[in-house]
């Protein structure tokens, strides 16, 4: 009864965190791709802002996505479902991409290097999000 009552609120919280995470990841990739062509002196401010954005928005969103997502899976008893296992693979890939991006921003700041692109990251994020959305809504297996 209690689990059923909080279920819609957990879904709302999970979806909100996912929106911030995926939106933030896409924005970071787009900004890094755009500034990588500019002179180093002009990149500094943007890279510092990206690092702060990562620390205050995308990392907390990632943490909340995992906490609310696992709470949902546990409360609904989905942990052994095939669709959730496939979905988790894509979620792990997105989380790894976020870790990689934040590490590379830190490296650029530390070494004074230009912003580095991660090949195929933008397309990968969109594709992963599409697969995750379909699996979460359709729950095929």
């Amino acid at each position: 009864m209690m689990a059923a009552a909080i279920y819609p609120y957990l879904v709302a919280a999970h979806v909100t965190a996912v929106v911030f995470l995926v939106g933030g990841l896409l924005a970071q990739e787009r900004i890094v791709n755009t500034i990588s062509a500019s002179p180093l002196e002009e990149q500094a401010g943007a890279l510092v802002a990206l690092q702060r954005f990562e620390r205050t928005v995308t990392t907390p969103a990632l943490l909340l996505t995992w906490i609310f997502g696992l709470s949902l899976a546990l409360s609904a008893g989905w942990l052994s479902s095939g669709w959730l296992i496939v979905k988790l693979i894509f979620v792990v890939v997105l989380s790894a991409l976020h870790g990689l991006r934040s590490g590379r921003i830190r490296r650029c700041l530390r070494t004074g290097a230009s912003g580095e692109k991660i090949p195929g990251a933008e397309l990968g994020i969109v594709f992963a999000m599409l697969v995750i959305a379909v699996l979460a809504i359709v729950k095929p297996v």
Partner: protein
Amino acid sequence: MNTNVQAEKNPHHQHGLIAGLECKQLKRLEAMSIIEATTLVLLVFIAAPLRHLWGWPYGSKLLGPIHGIAFLAYIWTALQTVAGGGWHQREVVRLFLIAFVPFGGYANIRWLRERAKTLAEIEQN
């Protein structure tokens, strides 16, 4: 001296935020390492024997998911740390494999502190 020259050449160094960025990251990894190692030790040496020898499953039912989350958080923090560069391949492999060994995470503490100390000394010079 050489580091000062590099810092002068680094246009990003005009922002104070950069100083100590790597040391803070190493501190986070050290904290995650301790949490992951502790949950693994509790799971393997307390919860698992309680379940299999005394038939009390609640310890592993509680600690299993907690360790799972701690493990994922450690792996993610380790990936974020090595993506910052400056790590040898052997050190990266060690960082990831150690998460599977009970008490292994504790071996990270001294190693990461020494690394942070070296980095801090380089930044000071």
